[in-house]
């Protein structure tokens, strides 16, 4: 699934490690999310949406 995590993170000038800390996950998790190779669960997706103050569908785009 495509997402805008990398852009949103860059806009705030956060490193992967910064975002990882804010979401209480590992830096590897952030990397896997950003490359679109791992789709987060709904609770994590909501957590990300709350952190960036945007709706989930503005961050994750379904390719179907």
């Amino acid at each position, binding site marked *: 699934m495509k997402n805008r995590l990398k852009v949103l993170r*860059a806009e705030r000038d956060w*490193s*992967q*490690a910064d975002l990882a800390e804010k979401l*209480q*996950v*590992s*830096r*590897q*998790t952030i*990397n*896997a*999310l950003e*490359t679109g*190779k*791992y789709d*987060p*669960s709904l609770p*994590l997706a909501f957590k990300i949406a709350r952190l960036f103050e945007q709706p989930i569908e503005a961050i994750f785009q379904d390719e179907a």
Partner: protein
Amino acid sequence: MDDAKPAWPRWALFFAGAAALSAIPFWLAFARPFQGAAMLVAMLAWALIYMAYVYAGSARLKAGQIGPVMKRYRRRLAVAMIAYFLLLLGSLTLLCSGGLTGPLLWIVAAAPAIPILGVLVVMGLYLKEEPDEFERMIHVESMLWGLGAVLGVSTVWGFLSNAGVVPAPPLFLMFPLFCLAWGFSQPFIRRRYQ
């Protein structure tokens, strides 16, 4: 920008070392270079070296990445493994001295398995407590590889030993095989998500 320097070559080296060390008990079991108490001491020495290697090596490789849940897992695992080696040593000493019969023999023979069952519980607790869903998934996936290795090896070995080509499989080594395959598969699984 993304401080993502690939760590997997160092992990590969670490696992190659672990695999080389893991071959030693198989060699000890089949080549039997030592007998009786000397064998016991050799196994114990190997176990201590192996545990120290894995514990210190992984801590070094994962410096700054080990969360509180993983720390708790490692502590519990260390306690279980120390209990295992103490029980194993006690059990083997009693079994070698002979004279045990009936229920006492059963209890003494099975005693080293108790902390190993404890390790299974410790692994389960880790999966339950790990707050990072991606980490949890990586571990579950690599545990499935461990399970696959155990089922694959024991099935092939079982048929071979049925035909009398090889001796009966040493079942107590299936758990270390599971752990080995679990550890080995992790860097490859992680790489798929990079």
